[in-house]
């Protein structure tokens, strides 16, 4: 099934009530200008693969992951209840999210409050679409990025939810088969970028930044591109790379690299 042509690039649940999967955008991709580019890359890929999807638009609220992990259980429950109600109203069954914290909250936190959904990370959906041959390159597509590429596994994706091969499959496609320069700490043994548990919102002594250390490890692979799968990691690794004076190194979401490769 394909999205009706008259629909906008990313229709809301009201505009496309017959959607098959909901794209949960998340706060970062909604508001952070850098992460917004990731959201747009995801939408381009979904449209290219003719995925029948919708977004909640203004009705989406923060999942409350940070609130819960900072210790404000009731703010989290307030947000969760509101979101579960909205998701129920539009009869949402399947969700794709580009933020591992959203994935984890929707999957594991919300199930405690009556929200049961099939939740996938965008890299999982993209890996499936690639396998199904639904993401062909457009003519004149760009070559794979120059220089080495490494991938930083987000904690809430790889360790907490065991999703570490799907992003690598997508990256393999995005790099035209070129292999990754893996960091020593990868997959479930990944090391944190420093943003989880609400730390994203805290001031941090520059000498004690978790991101600086992790970015140094990423740069240590000789990578010119650091791929990530989480908007918070995107921010932290970008800062971390800068702190290590990695001026010619890009930090990119997996979806953005795929968009680049396909020439969308």
């Amino acid at each position, binding site marked *: 099934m394909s999205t009706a042509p008259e629909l*906008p*690039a*990313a229709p*809301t649940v009201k505009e496309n009530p017959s959607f098959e999967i909901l794209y949960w*955008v998340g*706060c970062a991709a*909604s*508001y*952070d200008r850098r992460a*917004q*580019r990731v*959201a*747009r890359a995801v*939408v381009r890929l979904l449209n290219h693969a003719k995925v029948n999807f919708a977004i909640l*638009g*203004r009705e*989406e*609220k*923060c999942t*409350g992951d*940070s*609130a*819960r*992990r*900072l*210790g*404000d*259980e*009731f*703010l989290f*429950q*307030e*947000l969760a209840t509101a979101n579960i109600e909205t998701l129920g109203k539009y009869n949402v069954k399947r969700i794709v999210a580009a933020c591992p914290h959203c994935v984890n909250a929707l999957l*594991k*936190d919300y199930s405690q*409050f009556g929200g049961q959904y099939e939740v996938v990370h965008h890299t999982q959906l993209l890996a499936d679409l690639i396998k199904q041959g639904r993401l062909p390159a457009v003519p004149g597509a760009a070559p794979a990025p120059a220089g080495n590429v490494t991938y930083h596994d987000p*904690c*809430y994706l790889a*360790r*907490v*939810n065991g999703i570490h091969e799907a992003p690598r499959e997508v990256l393999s496609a995005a790099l035209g088969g070129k292999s990754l320069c893996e960091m020593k700490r990868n997959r*479930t043994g990944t*090391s*944190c970028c420093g*943003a*989880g*548990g*609400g*730390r*994203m*919102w*805290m*001031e941090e002594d520059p*000498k*004690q*930044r*978790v991101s*600086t*250390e*992790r970015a140094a490890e990423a740069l240590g692979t000789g990578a010119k591109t650091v791929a990530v799968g989480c908007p918070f990691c995107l921010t932290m690794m970008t800062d971390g790379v800068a702190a290590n004076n990695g001026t010619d190194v890009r930090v990119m979401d997996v979806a953005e690299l795929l968009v680049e490769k396909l020439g969308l």
Partner: protein
Amino acid sequence: MTPTRETFGNIPLSSQLAFYALAAVAVGIFCWGVWRRWKLWQIGQPIGFRELITGNLLAVWKNFRPGAQRVALDAGAQQRVRGHGLGTVAHLSLYVGFMALFAGTTLLELDNILSHLSEAFKFHRGLYYVVYEYTLDYLGLAFLAGTLFFCWRRFRKPAALGHRASDWYVLLSFLAIGVTGYLVEALRILWSQPTGITAHCSPVGLWLAGQLGSYTVSEARSAHFAVWWIHAFLAFGFFASIPFTRLFHFVAGPMNIFLAQPGLGSLVPVTMEEVEKTERVGVNDIRHFSIQQLLSLDACMECGRCEEVCPATASGKPLSPKRVVQDLKGLMEETATGLAAGKKEFRALHEDTIKAETLWSCTACSACVNTCPVRIDQLGLIISMRRHLVAEGGLSGTAATALRRMQSNANPWGLPPAERANWLDGLATKS
């Protein structure tokens, strides 16, 4: 001649009786020790033990299965000990050696009882005997090798490893038990002069007997008797001391693995009803932790793996998951002792024991929880304490601002909800 040997050979009946009396004392001390820890945990909040054992057998098995599976894999097959290089190899060899010797001793006792009922029931003979002796003889070496590695590591004292004086007692008594075990075997060979396969199925013992030089049979008998007693004393002493040393992880480890949260990524919810009833949110007192959480503190070996993977520790923040567990354990012991003595006031959990900045340092990355060999949920402990801080106005600064903004605008930046879909604008212009 069928290969076998006499149980309690060279040990007079009086010594045998004394042996059993001592065994009873050791078991008694062990049980008392375990019971003491058990009582300690009871200062915590009750957990659904009852629910675990309600319903018919099938229902009970269903309740037990996930936990039992975890124990079989994590403790039994040592799955969570893996992935730590030489430490893993050493623990595995110590574990396998120890379990084999422990099982061997138990089988020997079983054989002893059965053969007293009827000589026909004696199974410690023939091929079984050969395999048994051969296996235990070599696994004894594994046990000693593991122990030696841990001695060497403790000597080096890596930063992440916790250390107590009693650790040397444990390791040296392991060494002594292993060495005296071989000596007992060697001396037995010297006085019983076995031949053929019976002698060769204890290669280490045989080799050691050769090294001991010339003993007359009676000399060997008296030496054997003496060393046998030393070995027995050491073994009983070790057994009785389990609940009082780091070895208590033999007990608390599997128990915690059985009761632990099954996976990563979820937290135990709190309801408003609970809050209204208890008039508190989260944990403000060591007694507010659940019995399972307190038990988990006792499972900690201070192996330091959590600290090694903690990004907060690595970046110089005042948090080590291991320290949190150990500090809480200290407070648990202090509070329980105080309670028993009728005290009403205790050292405070927050600030006096665990500093707020320690709790705020955690990134909830779950690396510690994922790596803990005995499935301690450090993150669960930290978040339940954070909950109290937040409820009592202990959160300020930029994180508080983010929460305030989530309250008012449903996003941490406090940007207008009406602008939530504005990112789409770029799509129209860019594609």
